[in-house]
């Protein structure tokens, strides 16, 4: 079996942002401003579990700047067998479709992949659109919001999953190869082992450039068909809290309920 897990390095969940002249900057009070996208941890874990059950290789793949090696090292430390960084100045500024084209080219080049796994979305752009677009460019079936892989049979070429939708859980069966995105419910990501961290730190991660891939269609800022340049801090919430105090909880409840009726939210 060969699985590819597509990951992204993102700002940490506790990062504090500022915008100056349209440039987004961030820092983290905990001192680790960039992390493996938290949603991707579940995808990495699920890919490793597939490998543990079926043998074969799990390749971690990202498209991004050189610094994204750090996130790939986390994947290696968790147990991925290989990591590949795709990095090229001409890829910078791609929209989701451009990124999907590059990922599809890298997945095709890896050869004989049965399943590509993604986290539900990346916590920076928060679009969650690259998954389906990568599948469309590969001509593979997308299965999004997967909460459980119920059956995975690389020999028969089939997969059955539960997807978490607004109204409940849908069970779907599909033919491999597939692109899936996973939600948090699917597993509990492992912590990297000490040996894993040592191995990851010693690893040399191969870097592929545009010249190494046959990307089909436009990529980079010039091909992007969406303009995201106007980013700004949200206006502060115009509320100051009214703390309700009274002698009894019944009285507090009565006052609060009065307010909520006045607000017309009941």
């Amino acid at each position: 079996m060969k699985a590819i897990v597509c990951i992204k390095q993102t700002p940490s969940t506790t990062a504090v942002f500022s915008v100056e002249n349209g440039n987004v900057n961030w820092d983290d009070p905990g001192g680790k401003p960039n992390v493996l996208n938290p949603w991707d941890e579940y995808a990495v874990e699920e890919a490793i579990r597939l490998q543990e059950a079926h043998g074969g290789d799990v390749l971690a793949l990202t498209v991004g700047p050189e610094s994204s090696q750090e996130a790939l090292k986390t994947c290696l430390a968790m147990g991925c067998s290989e990591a590949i960084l795709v990095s090229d100045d001409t890829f910078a500024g791609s929209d989701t479709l451009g990124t999907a084209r590059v990922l599809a080219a890298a997945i095709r080049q890896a050869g004989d992949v049965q399943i590509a796994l993604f986290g539900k979305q990346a916590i920076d752009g928060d679009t969650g659109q690259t998954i389906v677009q990568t599948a469309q460019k590969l001509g593979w079936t997308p299965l999004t919001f997967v909460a459980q892989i119920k059956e995975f049979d690389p020999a028969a070429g089939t997969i059955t999953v539960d997807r978490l939708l607004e109204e409940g859980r849908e069970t779907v069966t599909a033919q491999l190869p597939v692109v899936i995105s996973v939600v948090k419910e699917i597993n509990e990501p492992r912590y990297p082992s000490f040996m894993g961290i040592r191995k990851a730190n010693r690893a040399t991660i191969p870097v592929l450039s545009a010249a190494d891939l046959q990307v089909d269609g436009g990529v980079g800022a010039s091909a992007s068909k969406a303009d995201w340049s106007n980013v700004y801090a949200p206006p502060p919430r115009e509320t100051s809290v009214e703390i309700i105090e009274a002698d009894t909880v019944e009285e507090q409840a009565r006052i609060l309920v009065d307010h909520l009726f006045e607000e017309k939210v009941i």
Partner: protein
Amino acid sequence: MSGVWVWIEHRDGEMKAIGQEMLGAGRGIADNLGQPLVALILGQDVANIATLAFDLGADAVIGCDDTSLADFRVEAYGPLIGQLARERGSSALLFGATTRGRDLAAWVAAELDAGLVPDGIGLKVENGTLVVTRPVYTGKLLADAFVTSSPQIISLRGRAFPPAESMGKSGQAEWVQPAVSEDDLTTRIIGFESSEGTVSLNDATIIVSGGRGVGGPEGFQPVQELADVLGGAMGASRAAVDAGWIPYEYQVGQTGKTVSPDLYIACGISGAIQHQAGMRTAKVVVAINKDPDAPIFKLASYGIVGDLFKIVPALSAEFRKRLG
């Protein structure tokens, strides 16, 4: 290229609220651009949905009624919408940013090699261009983004736009054939387990959520009771989900659901920035917490400092009295 197209989501023979909201948002754009509003209705036995779309303001309906479309499958729906857009041209394609709508918008954009801005919470038209306001970095920042190609493909969040109202219109839908035959589809929906009886967090106008302060699985009982009295949905913070007190589908926040109710009552939730990312667009937030310094009070309109196990039942009793 002309026409503002909206994809109408429906389930079990009924148009979903998000479908009505897309018709409402689409009507505004169509009027602004001076173009017809076209509703796309795909499924099986959907004639009534088409009738309702006309009533809610659609100028035209393009429908496809086929067994292969009975279940939503993006690889059946996507190519058909792609083909229609290629053949007839549309200036804008709108989707609700639901699990299905997001998948479909992404597929159609990939198929048309078109730009896409997903997940809008605000929308305006500037010189024919749809400018979409959407949260980025899990709501810590906002972006005003737009598509630079045609058609402009966007998806819009639920409960961010008012639903279309009945205009008493009617019309004749145009029915087309599916683009992909069942034989060429490799996915099968083989089961569905609905989260029945519970109000969906995404659609709820009132949400009552519990966090670490509820102390255990049984601590959600008064929280659920208040949600039930108000006809609302119950939610939870990550801390409560991670502790195993309540299943993941209840989680509100950065790694859970993003909700936008009229009223959000946070019980025993400290309000970490990750939780705020999932509920900061609620109209009115009520915080109930032992700790007067909990960050949730900074986001709240009303707060009560104290024991949630006394306050929440008192609120249920008071609401029961008023609501009869």
